[in-house]
């Protein structure tokens, strides 16, 4: 029995070793970027500007995908999309949207207190943060579909307008 267990563990380690570069079912950040782009489409920001700034808190793989988006698309109303890495939280003021990566989830309270009622949409990667100050958080459903929760209270507080179509797709956090 012990030999069987040892062989099995060795087998698993071997498999992991030979396959570490192959693609498998893990988080696809392109999917999250697709959702972020739709948030831009279906949410209205109050202040007109020439560009739309997306800030990313944390060293997340989503940055690569966001840069790809910014390279080929503008917002539906023709603004250039700018991607900004947030290393210092005080640099979030000019952001229209802030993506809070999973590993920096504990910074939500600090982020909310800095932004207060500025019209910057906080989208959190971690489930549950729409109840802790973010406007939107992602979650993965039982069948692996990507879902998102929206806090209408937080969104309205920032004078952002979200379309009914998007709300129908969302889970309401409050």
């Amino acid at each position, binding site marked *: 029995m012990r030999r069987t267990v040892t062989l099995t563990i060795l087998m698993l380690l071997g*498999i992991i070793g*030979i396959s570490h570069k192959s693609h*498998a*079912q893990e*988080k696809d950040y392109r999917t999250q970027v697709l959702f972020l782009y739709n948030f831009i489409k279906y949410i209205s920001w109050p202040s007109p500007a020439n560009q739309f700034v997306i800030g990313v808190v944390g060293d997340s793989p989503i940055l690569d995908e966001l840069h790809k988006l910014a390279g*080929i698309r503008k917002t539906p109303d023709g603004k250039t999309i700018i991607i900004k890495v947030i290393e210092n939280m005080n640099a979030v003021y000019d952001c229209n949207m802030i993506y809070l990566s999973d590993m920096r989830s504990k910074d939500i309270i600090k982020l909310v207190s800095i932004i207060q009622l500025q019209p910057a949409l906080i989208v959190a990667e971690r489930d549950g943060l729409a109840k802790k100050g973010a406007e939107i958080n992602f979650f993965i459903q*039982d069948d692996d579909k990507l879902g998102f929760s929206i806090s209408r209270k937080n969104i309205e507080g920032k004078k952002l307008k979200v379309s009914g179509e998007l709300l129908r797709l969302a889970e309401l956090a409050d």
Partner: protein
Amino acid sequence: MKKVSSVFFLLFIYLTLHAQQDSLKIKIDSLYQYYDMSLEELSHVKASGVSSELETFINSLITVASQKAISTRESPSAISLISEEDIKKSGARDLIDVLRLVPGFDFAYDGSNTIGIGIRGNWANEGKVLLQVDGVQMNEIFSGATQFGNNFPIASISRIEIIRGPGSAIYGGFAELGVINIITKNPDELNGGYITGTFGQMQHGSARRTLNLGIGKKVKAFEFSLTGVMGEGNRSDRTAFVRGVSTTISSRETMANNSATNPFFWNGKIGYKGFSLRLIYDNYKTDVLTLTDESGKRFLSRYTNALSAEAKYTWKASDKLSLTPSLFLTWQSPGVSNLSDSLNLIQDRGHRFQSSVTAAYDFSRKINMVTGATYFTDIGTNDADSITTISNYVSSIQYHTYALFSQLTIKHRIANIVLGARYENNSEFGDAFVPRIAFTKRVDRFHLKLLYSNSFRSPSIQNIARGVANTSGAIGSIGPEHTRVAEIELGYQLTRDILTTANFFNTSIKDPIVYISDLNLYTNFDKSGSQGVELEARMKKRWGSITANYSFYTVANQTRLQIYSTQQYIQGDTLQPSGGDASKSTLLAFPAHKITLTANVTLSKSLSISSSILWNSKRYGYDFQTSDQGTYEIYLKEDAPKLMSNIFLTWSSPVKGLDLGAGVFNLFNTRYNYMVPVGSRTAAPLPSGSREYTIRLSFLLKSKTPQS
């Protein structure tokens, strides 16, 4: 053992490299178009991007393990999922063809004309594995047994969800070691009808001539369906040892056209909104030669003759709460008769009247509770309105059971947690309480399951009627058997198309209920169980799928139950040494090692080929031999490792809905015998059939009106 592991290791490497090369060929969609996706399309997007064939399969939601829809990788049990496509392409003739490819599952002969199932080395025939068709229990309630071999309508199956471990905390008494949940095509899926004829011919006799039929339709809120199978078949065409009434007579007789396995199974449903009524009638008949004497051969004939009805209503009280009251009734008159002596007919009757209510409440997306209560009465009689117990004749045996069960599922970021328990009170044998706890966690490619469950098997009517306190037949009541199962499952998705899993288990059975055939009695023995590992690699792509698995069990570290072991057997009321050089870590009838390899390949739009290979290590079982003096005597037989293979070709004809299938089963003409797993059974192994050529013709007629 090392060779087996090496073969698997090489296979895994091959599959991985193959898939990596293949993935490079995948064309990536234009990013620009990708961001134009509509909101409607957005709601179907997976968190992991566009799902591969495998991901679609393993992420499909199942309910068998928790009653809450969860994907296989996060379900709180060791799960095997078999799709309609797998069954259809493989040409599977019956459930044996399907289930023997499941890790840890195997079949054996009960010595009395029943092929039953074993799980992880443990004989599970009489009430230790629950078989459900559309939620309706198929186990015969008199003994708890389920019979296999050319039985059940294979063409009606939409999918099979299998728990390879305990399910008592949800399902109660018969789900001690496993659950087989067969889900047939619902009216919406049928949306018309089908007819499938199967013809099989073994080397020396007919194998089967069966007809599967199904019709169904959903019209607005109303739906109906009727599916079933009827026909005839033979278990084997090889010769079997047939005992004489006295020990000086024995012979080998052919089973060709002599070993009937005739299915007759119908499953009807009508539904309106949340209400459904289901009726299932099963009258599976089998014959086997058991005795020979001066007056000729004697057959043992069995038939199941069971009618079950379930009415239930699912009331969605709110988005969060649903209530499902149900009524379940079953009337069963399974029969055993000796054809050459019609007076020797035993017709037992078992009835169950059950009412249940189940409530499911979603506290949030992450917390769900399912709770319920069941009350049922089991009544056993025979056709003379009296039933033989160990001490006297009584008009009937009747007992009542009430059960409460509850399960809490918490989906937390750290892990999914399932806590559940079932409490049962039986008027004959008292209380049983079975808790379960499960942690499951999926991190990208990796998944982990830590599972612990108590389980129990309540004595059946027959156990109570013929139950004694010990192996000597002392008067006293029989009790339930209790099982503890601990499992660890590790899973790793090598690529988008390949999933590998390793499941380690330890099953410990206390007070197992065992039939002692020499005494015609049941009693609780001391302890039994097994431990081992099941490995599986599954690759699924558009062109087809390849699945390989390996199962291993041992009883080396378990308390060995003598009657299941190869060390000693019971004859009369005394233990006899087996006299054989038997492995100490293997139980009777079931091989320690099993390897299966299945491949389905789509050759063209209209042509697909499927093949399976099964290898098992040596097995042990008792057999008979004729001595120099002409008498027959029992001995322990070591059955050499066996290799079996099937191949099946499916062709979709230009006529819409018309498919033709042809295949060869037992390609190598392996002389496989179902061995007897109980050391008190004075029966020889039952030979399975020789090479079988099978033709299947099926016609699917879909309604012109679209599915609702």
